[in-house]
């Protein structure tokens, strides 16, 4: 093997005799049912540098972690490798475990032998076992060359930017301000409240949405710690947790003129909300017939229709019957529905529409008893506390239900002329799939939620979106309000469809995370940033040409042996550790800490090493 190339391998990072502890997790059978963990442990003892090699049923459990701690002390380990599940689940757990034993957490390496081994090679136990050994061998190579790293500590600006002045944004702002944290609340429209203004009566309390909006608004307005910027947009954002530089553009301030202000915040909360789905022209006759409305339109109709009467009235005509069609723009089926302008099909459930429809249907029946209501659904999803009551009450109030299949949606046509009643044809699965025909005066389309507008922030901060186009949290259970960019949090419907209560709960959860970030004076960051080996740097400046992040990398003049020389220098707060600079350095003077090229080389060596001599 050609690893003697002096250009490639520097032994500087290699401790004289590393003592690596290897721990293999059975994961209660998840791993050991396929991978022969005992055999792996035995073989791994043969890998150079490995001092201890053990198996445990649950490495992540307390006794599992205790084993590592005990060994670090008793066996004088200086490196630890755990072969278990994906590092996304437990890297932090085990880092914590080694820290408790006074070991540097970055001298720990995790090997994924579950998601990428035992689960992916279920029918090849021999192959999976051999692969586990090679992967551990690679990790031992990497960890042997690992150097102790420390978290980067940066000043923390005790100020939060909340983007969006809807219920989620107002809730986060109010929560944080109540805990003494100053908040900049940016809202692009001219008033706070967001979508609350388009809602009527909220379920399950029946409270008026505008009342809630007013209550929350007055709370936010009264708090001197909250700076509210209406008619404004975030146009520029850069920086990092604790130190985000934000440019806000808008016509606020005394002059009323369009101005731009800059501020520094420690945390950004995305409360950017959702957009209701807008049906295409002609979708269920929308925009082709005057009485085909969406639930959003219908909400304002209900809100403005002050008179109680026998029937509902709309644009001068009496509406004798209404059909609500569920899942418009939600639960779309490939090949049945037409993708939107962005080529996207909304295959997800928008969660709130079922109860919204029933809430509206019930209001119609209660306020306009002679207006008949029909409900065309796929499934009635009144899942929440107090929601099923809407379904029951709507039934009791005489709403008639029809059930269609997603791949056979109902059709809406004009019965006669352009302003005639509407004709709905539905294959009704409550009637054994029979084709039924209804004539109605109005059709209300229960439009779903689509991802809200937040392009600037998404583009500039590179925020990930999910398959559904909503902002993607790191993990729905482990880190539900955090996103892959440190210091950016998700609140409410920017993340997924939610009703108002859920939105407020999610906002509370985001606020609590934000507040926790401000409990320390400084922000702590992972140390995975570029690092320059000044001995090797010849000051070519090639690296600089590759860096996309303003201020992350610079050439500075320093004195060396009495001469002034140019050397590259990294700003760890701005460097994202992408490594674009690394690949071009002719002297290999620059590397990303924790992910150095020589470590990768050592991994490749480990991968091709014949660890298992007796087997071959």
């Amino acid at each position, binding site marked *: 093997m050609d690893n003697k190339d002096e250009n490639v391998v520097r032994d500087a990072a290699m401790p004289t005799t590393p003592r690596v502890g290897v721990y293999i997790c059975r994961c209660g059978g998840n791993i050991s049912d396929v991978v022969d963990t005992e055999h792996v442990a035995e073989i791994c003892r043969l890998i150079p540098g490995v001092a201890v090699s053990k198996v445990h049923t649950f490495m992540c459990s307390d006794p599992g972690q205790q084993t590592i701690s005990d060994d670090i002390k008793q066996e004088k380990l200086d490196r630890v490798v755990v072969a278990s599940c994906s590092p996304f689940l437990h890297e932090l757990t085990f880092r914590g475990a080694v820290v408790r034993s006074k070991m540097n957490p970055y001298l720990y390496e995790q090997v994924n032998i579950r998601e990428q081994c035992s689960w992916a090679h279920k029918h090849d136990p021999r192959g999976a076992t051999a692969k586990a050994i090679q992967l551990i061998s690679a990790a031992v190579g990497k960890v042997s060359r690992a150097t102790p790293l420390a978290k980067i500590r940066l000043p923390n600006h005790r100020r939060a930017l909340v983007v969006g002045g809807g219920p989620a944004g107002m809730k986060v702002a109010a929560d944080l301000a109540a805990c003494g944290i100053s908040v900049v609340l940016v809202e692009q429209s001219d008033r706070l409240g967001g979508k609350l203004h388009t809602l009527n009566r909220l379920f399950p309390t029946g409270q008026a949405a505008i009342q809630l909006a007013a209550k929350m608004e007055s709370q936010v307005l009264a708090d001197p710690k909250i700076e509210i910027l209406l008619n404004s947009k975030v146009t520029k954002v850069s920086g990092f947790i604790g130190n985000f530089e934000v440019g806000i553009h808008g016509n606020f301030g005394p002059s009323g003129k369009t101005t731009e202000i800059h501020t520094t915040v420690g945390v950004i909360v995305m409360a950017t909300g959702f957009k209701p789905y807008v049906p295409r022209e002609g979708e269920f006759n929308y925009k082709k017939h005057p009485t085909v409305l969406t639930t959003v339109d219908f909400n304002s109709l209900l809100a403005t229709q002050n008179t109680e009467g026998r029937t509902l009235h709309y644009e001068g005509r009496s509406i004798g019957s209404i059909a609500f069609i569920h899942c418009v723009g939600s639960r779309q089926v490939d090949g049945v529905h037409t993708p939107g302008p962005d080529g996207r099909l909304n295959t997800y459930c928008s969660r709130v529409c079922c109860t919204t429809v029933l809430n509206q249907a019930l209001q119609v029946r209660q306020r306009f008893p002679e207006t008949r209501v029909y409900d065309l659904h796929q499934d009635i999803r009144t899942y929440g506390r107090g929601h099923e009551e809407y379904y*029951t009450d709507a039934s*009791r109030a*005489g709403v008639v*239900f029809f059930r269609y299949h997603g791949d056979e949606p109902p059709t809406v046509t004009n019965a006669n002329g352009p302003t005639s009643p509407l004709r709905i*044809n539905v294959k*009704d699965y409550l009637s054994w799939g029979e084709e*039924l*025909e209804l004539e109605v005066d109005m059709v209300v389309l229960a439009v779903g939620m689509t991802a809200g507008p937040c392009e600037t922030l998404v583009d500039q901060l590179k925020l990930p979106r999910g398959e559904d186009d909503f902002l993607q949290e790191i993990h729905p259970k482990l880190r539900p309000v955090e996103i892959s960019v440190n210091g950016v949090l998700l609140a409410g419907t920017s993340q997924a469809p939610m009703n108002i209560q859920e939105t407020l709960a999610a906002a509370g959860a985001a606020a609590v995370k934000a507040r926790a970030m401000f409990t320390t004076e400084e922000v702590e960051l992972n140390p995975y940033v570029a690092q320059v080996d000044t001995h090797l740097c010849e000051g070519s400046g090639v690296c600089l040409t590759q860096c996309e992040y303003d201020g992350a990398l610079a050439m500075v003049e320093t004195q060396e042996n009495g001469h002034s020389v140019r050397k590259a220098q990294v700003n760890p707060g701005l460097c994202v550790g992408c490594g674009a600079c690394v690949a071009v350095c002719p002297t290999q003077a620059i590397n990303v800490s924790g992910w150095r090229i020589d470590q990768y080389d050592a991994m490749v060596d480990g991968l091709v090493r014949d660890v298992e001599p007796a087997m071959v």
Partner: protein
Amino acid sequence: MAGKFNPDLHLDITGFGGKDIDMCMNCGTCTTICPMSEDSGGGFPRRVIRLIQTGQQSKLEETLDPWLCYYCGDCTTNCPRQANPAETMMASRRYLTARYDFTGLAKLFYKSAVAEILAIILVGLFVTGLFVAFHGPMVLNKVELNTFAPVHAVELGDWIMAAVLSFFLLAGAARMTWWTLGRKKMFRISPLIFIQQIPVFFVHLFTQKRWKKCGSHHSGIRWMKHLLLVSGYLSMLTLVLILLRWFQTDKIYPFYYPQRLWGYYATIALLYPTVDFMISRWRRKEPIHLFSEASDWIFLVMLFLTALTGIMVNIFRVGGLPMATYLIYVIHLSIAVPMLVVEVPFSKWSHIMYRPLSIYLYGVKQAATRANRAADEPASEKVAA
């Protein structure tokens, strides 16, 4: 096939006593808990509820389902939405009775207790009037009922009434047959099938044996009581319609003579179940008696009074009280006649015809389907070959 929606149908059925039809969410619990539904081609009672919910009036009129239900109430007890399927079936039977009746009287009587009572009173007064005008001499030293009300005259009245009532009832039966066999489609069914199935009608007319399959143990008891009642009024029908000359005599036969024994049996068979049903309805003991419409009460009360006055005629006659006998006889007929006139073709009693007829028609349909399938099979085999 596109069905049109009549949104008022469920209101109509509610008018006939339908309860909570809107509450049904079509989960299918009632259908599978029902011991009869599988025998009846499935989907029962939900099919009826759904037809009502979706306003498919003509399909509702075409279905036999309501007549195949005997109201054990299991569906109502088990319904997760308390939608009361059993009562909906009951109401559908009333609705269908009204629809089969071309005169519109049935609908009037079902929907308005006042109208029904008024009709009964009118007919009763008419009967009383007849007696007042045309009764024979009243022999007061001994009971001579046949002098007061000559048996041949009463018999003639019986026959006229029977003919008129049969006409209305048969007209209803004809409409039921026409609709449920698919109107013109019924001509495609071989007449042989109609003939073959005739025994079914009579077996069910006399035994109601289908009921035994219905529901839990109390259905069995209810069937027995009902059977008793049926035997009671079939006995009475026979006695007054065919054997009146033998039954209504002035000679007092010894106790063990058949006309007396049969009469007593019929009286008990009428009195015991009606009293029992009235108590049950009053106390709401069984699911079937949870909800009582005026028509249910009127029917039971009239039946009870008819039987009661009937036996009182006998008591007074045997007791040798001429005046009381004549009086109670007039009262008896003034109750019995309107009851029959109103109840038999236009109200609850019509089910004595519709129930066995529905089973007969169901049998015809099944046999026709079997015959069609048998006829189709060779053809499809040919295609396959």
